[in-house]
C-alpha cells in the first residue's frame, strides 16, 4: 500500500509539475527577454482557465469541444496579453523593477475582478475530454489517463520551445534580443514586435496551462495568486530566463511537493518556499542560470 501510494503521489506530482512548467516557462521566457517580472502571468493563466470553462460550457453539445477550447482559449489569452504589452508594458521597459511589480500587480487586481464580473464567484468544473475520461493501470495503480496525457504534453512543449529558440530564425532573434536589444534593432529587426510576440507566446503558454488545469481541478477565483508564487519558485530553482531550468525546476517542485505531502503533511506547502530560499541563498542564479 505504501508503495502504491508513493507511485500515485509520484505520478500526480509529475503531472501537476508539468502543467506548472508550461506556465512557468512562459514567465521565464518573458523575464529572460523583456526583463519584466510579470505578476499578472497568473492572471493570464486564470483567464485561460475561465475561457476554457466558458467555451466548454457554452458549446457543451459540440463534439470534441474541449479540444477546440484547448486551441482557442490559449489564443484568447495570448491576444489579451498582446493588448497589455502594446498598451502598457511597452512603456515601462527598463524602469525600476518596483514600478513593473506594482503595475503588474494592478493588472492582477484588474483581471481578477474582471473574471469575477464575467463569471462570478463559484467553482466551475470542466470534465476531461474523450479519450481521456477514465483511469488506466500504471504499475498496479489506477491513475486518471488525462493526467498521463498532460505528463506527455509537458515534455513535448519543452522540446518544441527548445527547438524554436535553438533552430528557427525567430528563436535566434529572440536570443540575440535578450543579449543586446540595441544591436539587434540596429541590424534592422523590429525589436518591439519581437517583444510583443515573445510576450504573446508567454501568455499563450499561460493560457494553455490554464486550459489544461481546468480539467484537472476546479476553475475558480484566486487560482491566480497561488500559481504565480509557484511559478516564481520554479523559475528561481531553475534560473530566471532558462527554459531547461524551468523544466527541471517544475519536476523538482512537483516531486518535492507531493512527496512532502506523504512524508511531512504539515509542511508540504512550505517546502517549495524553503527550496526557493535555499537556492537564492547559495546559488541565486538558479540551477541552469549563469551568474551576472
Amino acid at each position: 500500500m505504501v508503495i502504491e501510494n508513493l507511485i500515485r503521489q509520484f505520478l500526480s506530482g509529475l503531472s501537476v509539475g508539468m502543467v506548472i512548467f508550461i506556465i512557468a516557462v512562459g514567465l521565464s521566457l518573458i523575464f529572460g527577454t523583456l526583463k519584466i517580472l510579470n505578476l499578472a502571468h497568473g492572471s493570464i493563466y486564470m483567464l485561460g482557465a475561465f475561457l476554457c470553462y466558458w467555451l466548454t460550457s457554452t458549446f457543451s453539445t459540440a463534439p470534441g469541444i474541449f479540444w477546440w477550447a484547448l486551441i482557442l482559449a490559449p489564443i484568447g489569452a495570448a491576444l489579451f496579453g498582446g493588448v497589455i504589452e502594446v498598451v502598457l508594458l511597452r512603456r515601462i521597459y527598463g524602469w525600476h523593477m518596483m514600478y513593473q511589480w506594482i503595475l503588474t500587480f494592478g493588472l492582477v487586481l484588474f483581471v481578477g475582478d474582471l473574471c469575477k464580473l464575467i463569471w462570478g464567484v463559484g467553482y466551475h468544473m470542466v470534465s476531461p475530454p474523450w479519450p481521456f475520461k477514465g483511469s488506466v493501470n500504471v504499475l498496479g495503480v489506477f491513475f486518471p489517463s488525462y493526467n498521463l496525457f498532460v505528463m506527455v504534453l509537458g515534455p513535448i512543449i519543452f522540446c518544441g520551445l527548445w527547438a524554436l529558440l535553438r533552430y528557427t530564425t525567430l528563436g535566434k532573434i529572440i536570443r540575440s534580443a535578450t543579449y543586446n536589444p540595441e544591436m539587434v534593432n540596429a541590424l534592422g529587426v523590429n525589436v518591439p514586435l519581437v517583444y510583443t510576440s515573445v510576450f504573446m507566446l508567454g501568455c499563450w503558454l499561460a493560457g494553455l496551462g490554464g486550459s489544461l488545469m481546468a480539467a484537472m481541478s476546479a476553475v475558480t477565483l484566486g487560482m491566480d495568486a497561488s500559481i504565480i508564487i509557484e511559478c516564481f519558485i520554479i523559475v528561481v530553482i531553475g534560473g530566471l530566463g532558462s527554459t531547461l531550468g524551468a523544466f527541471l525546476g517544475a519536476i523538482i517542485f512537483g516531486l518535492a511537493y507531493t512527496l512532502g505531502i506523504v512524508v511531512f503533511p504539515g509542511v508540504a506547502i512550505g517546502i517549495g518556499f524553503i527550496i526557493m530560499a535555499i537556492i537564492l541563498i547559495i546559488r541565486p542564479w538558479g540551477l541552469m542560470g549563469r551568474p551576472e
Partner: protein
Amino acid sequence: MKSLWNRIYTFRAVWLAIALIFLFALPSFLSLGHTSLVIEMLILAVAACGLNLIMGYAGMVSFGPAGLYAVGAYTTALLIVKANVPFGLAIMAGPVAAAIIGFLVGWFCVRLTHVYFALLTLAFSQIIHTIIFQWYSFTGGDNGIVGIRVPDYIASINHYYYFTLALTVVCLALMWMIGNSSFGKTLQAIRENPERAEFIGIHVRIYQLAAFVLSSFFLGAAGSLFCGFNRNVFPVYAHWIKGADIIVVCLLGGMYKFLGPFLGSILYIILDKVTVSFTEYWPLVLGLIIVLLVLFLRGGIAGFFTEKFSATTIRGSREER
C-alpha cells in the same frame, strides 16, 4: 505658487502642531465608524513608513513586508491568548519579535541585490505565511486567533484611537529622526550609488541590514497595533497580496518624501471606502488606479505637490531605473 510651498515649508512646526491638534480633536466630531477608519489609516501609515525606510531611503525593494507585519501581530496575539501577558508588554514584544525575525531574514537578504533580494524577501514572507497557516495547534491555522482581550482603558474605539495616535506619533517621530540622521543620509547614498558608497568606506551590507531590522521593527509595530484594534489575527496578514498593498500605499503617497506613505495610507483607505460604497468591484477600480499611477504619477501625491509648488525641484533623476 512656488513661493507658496516655501512659505508653508518655513512654518512646518506650526503646521505640525495644527495637524496634531486636529488629530487630537478628531474623535469629537467623527462617528465611531469614521474614527476606526482613521485608526486604520494611522496603522497603515506606520507600516508604509516602516517599509519606506528600506524602499525609499535605502532603495531596497522588498516584496515581503507582510511576513514581518504578521510576526508583530501574531506575537502580540499569542502572548495575550496563550501566556496571559499584560497588553502593554505584548504590544511592545510584537515589534521586538519582528525585528529579531527581520534580523534573521535580512542577514541572508542583504547579500543579494535587485530582483534576487526582492524574491528572497518574498520567499521568507511566504515561509512565515505557511508556518502561521499550517501550525494549527499554536497559531490556529486558517481560523486565526479570535477574541483577543484588550484592557478596559483602551477597549472603546475612542480610547484606542488615542492609544494608536500616541504610538503612531512616536513611531513617525522615530522614523523621521532615523531618516534625517547621518545613518539615514548614508542609506540614501547607498541607494544612489552602492559602489561609490563602498569606496568611501561604508560597509554597505551592515547599513542595509540595520535598515532592514529597523524597517521590520516598525512593520511589526503596525502589526501589533492592528492586532489590538481588530482583536483577531488571520494568516492572510502574511500573504504576499497584503504586502503588495503596503507597497502600493508607499507608491501612492510618494516614496522619496517622508510623509508620502502617510498621505498614501489616508488616500488608500478613503478610496477603499468610497469605492466600496458604490461598487463591489473595488479591486477593478484600484487596479486601474494603480496602473495609471505607475504610468503617470510615479512620484506619488507628495512628489506631485513638491514638483508643482516647490522652487527647488529635482527633476527626473530618481524616476528612471
